[in-house]
């Protein structure tokens, strides 16, 4: 693996040094043009400024290089005695100002367009959490509101180099955001804990998710496809592991997907009322734990103290069950422990709490029913 890589690297360096244009296999060198009108404007703006900088660079560095080649003592150059020239000083103050105005005008236009949110066709709340994104499709009818959490899908084995890395390594999620094309989508971006930033390069949307504040951004995606992005603001341990995947689909496909999600939500709530067996709870709980809790508390439940406490044989996992439910549902302020009451459904909450109280030799024998969690959730409101 390493050997293959280094030969590739040497070839690449050779291409770079020889000024070869064959960079096809190297991924994009430049900013993406994207799939919205705004993203293309941003790209054009980027290319204009880049071009201006290159031109200025050629002139300034050109003069320097000519000077370095010609005005050398070894060539017998005698130093001139001039050391000021007011006209020249004015000239190279005024010319840059004119160039800057030339750049500021189109930049102002694009920025105004970006800030002109207008009436949206669809509002989606984007909520950053350590270290995943939660999407809520806002709907006037709360029972038809679709809400889910989008987690990194790349398995730990790939990250720890125990398995070959897939094509979309670190840029794949279990449940992508799905949006219709050619509709004006408004993203309402906020955070549950620390500051994150929601960034999809193909839409030229990057906005900080600030806890306690809601920021707005929008996009009209013109081409169906899968668009990938990442959290752009340092948000703690797994900042590098909270990707964003957006599926842009045709309107009809979007509607089918939405109806399916709404039905799924309804089914989940039906299971809340039923009596679960311990084995069912343990099986579901193990899945939920692996998906949600394991990043911090680790697969063996030992955590990474002191930031992420151990769940084995100590603390709330073997203590009073009400306190255990409370910390899972409401989180703990000032720590990385989130309030999972809004992220997981009652069945998942009951299952994962049951799992934690019986796994790794905790063996409390406690079985928590989803109905009881539901009572606590609704009773608490």
């Amino acid at each position, binding site marked *: 693996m390493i050997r293959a*890589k280094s030969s590739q*690297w040497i070839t*690449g360096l050779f291409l770079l040094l020889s000024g070869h244009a064959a960079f096809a296999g190297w991924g*994009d*060198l430049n*900013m993406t043009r994207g799939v919205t009108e*705004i993203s293309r404007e*941003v790209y054009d*703006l*980027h290319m204009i*400024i*880049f071009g201006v*900088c290159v031109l200025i660079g050629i002139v*300034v*560095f050109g*003069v320097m290089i000519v*000077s370095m080649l010609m*005005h*050398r*003592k*070894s060539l017998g150059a005698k*130093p001139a005695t001039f*050391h*000021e*020239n007011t006209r020249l000083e004015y000239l*190279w*103050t005024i010319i840059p*100002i004119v160039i*800057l105005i030339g*750049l500021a005008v189109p*930049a102002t236009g694009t*920025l105004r367009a*970006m800030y002109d949110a207008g009436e949206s066709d669809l509002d989606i709340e984007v909520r950053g959490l*350590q270290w995943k994104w939660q999407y809520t499709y806002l709907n006037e009818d709360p029972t038809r509101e679709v809400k889910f959490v989008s987690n990194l899908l790349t398995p730990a084995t790939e*990250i720890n180099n125990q398995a070959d*890395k897939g094509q979309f390594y*670190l*840029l794949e999620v279990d449940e992508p955001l799905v949006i219709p094309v050619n509709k004006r989508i408004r993203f309402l971006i906020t955070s549950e*804990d*620390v*500051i994150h*930033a929601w*960034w999809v*390069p193909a839409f030229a949307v990057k*906005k900080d998710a*600030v*806890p*306690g*504040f809601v*920021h707005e951004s929008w996009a009209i995606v013109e081409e169906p496809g899968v668009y990938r992005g*990442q959290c752009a*603001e*340092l*948000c*703690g341990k797994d*900042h*590098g*592991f909270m990707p964003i995947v957006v599926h842009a689909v045709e309107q009809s496909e979007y509607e089918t997907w939405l109806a399916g999600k709404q039905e799924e939500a309804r089914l989940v709530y039906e299971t809340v009322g039923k009596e679960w067996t311990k084995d069912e709870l343990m099986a579901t709980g193990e899945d939920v734990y692996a998906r949600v809790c394991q990043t911090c508390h680790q697969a063996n439940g030992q955590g990474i103290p*002191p930031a992420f406490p151990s769940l084995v044989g100590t603390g709330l996992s073997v203590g009073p069950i009400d306190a255990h439910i409370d910390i899972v549902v409401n989180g703990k302020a000032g*720590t990385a422990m989130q309030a999972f009451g809004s992220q997981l459904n009652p069945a998942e909450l009951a299952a994962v709490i049951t799992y934690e109280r019986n796994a790794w030799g905790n063996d409390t024998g406690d079985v928590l029913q989803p109905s009881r969690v539901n009572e606590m959730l609704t009773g608490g409101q």
Partner: protein
Amino acid sequence: MSAVIEEHHDDHHHGPDKGIMRWVLTTNHKDIGTLYLWFSFIMFLTGGVMALVIRAELFQPGLQLVQPEFFNQMTTMHGLIMVFGAVMPAFVGLANWLVPMMIGAPDMALPRMNNFSFWILPFAFAMLLSSLLMEGGAPNFGWTFYAPLSTDYGPPSTTFFIFGVHLMGISSIMGSINVIVTILNLRAPGMTLMKMPLFVWTWLITAYLLIAVMPVLAGVVTMMLMDIHFNTAFFNAGGGGDPVLFQHVFWFFGHPEVYIMILPAFGVVSAIIPTFARKRLFGYDSMVYATASIAFLSFIVWAHHMFTVGIPIAGELYFMYATMLIAVPTGVKVFNWVATMWQGSMTFETPMLFSIAFVILFTIGGFSGLMLAIVPADFQYHDTYFVVAHFHYVLVPGSVFSIMAAVYYWLPKWTGNMYNETLGKTHFWLSFIGVNITFFPQHFTGLAGMPRRIPDYALQFADYNMISSCGAFLFGFSQLLFLFIVIRTIKGGKKATDQVWEGAHGLEWTIPSPAPYHTFSTPPKDLSEAHG
């Protein structure tokens, strides 16, 4: 009081004390300058090792050497140590050595405070570094320590970090007061402000910037301290505070801070280029005015670090226009350096090589800075490796190269010996190539979409990261050659003349090499050589 003065008078003509106490108790500006410079070099290597840990982890996709928690500690400590431990103290060291010699003063105006402001630093950094060994690890929230990641979610060692920052701030403020008082009061008779060498000018302005913004930094870390330990909610929306307030206050310090790290570099380069072009600095007056304009503008552009935090459009436009304006005085400086070189009679000794590389690579950093100023484009660049490439171009081949240029340029004056030119040039070329291999590809990874501060990355970024890491190791290990050259020069070598360089002008070149322990005990009469 009078006893102190008499005592001072008594040993006035003696040389330095013997042994370790010479360095602990010294009030001599040359000794303190030396202490600052060695301290900053040790910190440069320490922060450099951390950078190499980062680059080693990023050599390939996947987690190989360190876990994300430790990776974040490394990025944080690397930034803090390089900014506060390496670059700033190095410039203070240069100021200590050079300002009195350049203005014809016998010493710094406040020698005991000078001693104190240095000796705070080793303790501040010992405390900061000790947090690596604490439970929960060192600060891991980036050198910008944004709340609430650094407050509600920070490790227990955050409090030590806050105290460390306070100490560094006290040290910087005392150092700045000393520089200002020295320059304003101890200039040789006849040396008006507009006759001062540009290095002295840039340091005078830098010192004012430091005095203006270090208290702001102290304020923001104190607010953090209150939030962490005393249940205030300055930066907690749940208690009526605002996380974005943190960023406003931080960057009100942070933006002038980047000019604190570059203005003295402008001064160094403005001294070296005329020497080796054998021609007076072009546009001295406009250089002074440009420096002052940059310093002023640096106070009114802070939010360009925060274009994505949801500032209203009027704010975005204002900060974009104001930021673009900085390109004007900065351009004036670059054009002046080029005009100084034009029709000179140039030779390319090591200090000149570093200075020319400074002008070219700093300008490249300036170009990417201009690109970052354009708000719509910044939405794509922000918090990516493009930004990392940008600020490393202005800081490494910018500030750090100027410091190296300064060391090669004035080392013969300090030690009385010439350094080995072949080794110096080798060090330059290794550094120049290393820096560009490290940071140039980062422009591409950034544009292609790689966020900064991540311990692992998607596969399309693999090749450029590998190149970048190779460059970093080349640059890092080349600095051991620098250490070797400096030690060798201190121990011996060809004797330097008083003027050292054929084209050098300025009061420091009128005194013997090595500079005697006490210089300009009586002010110089002839100021015709005062600035180049």
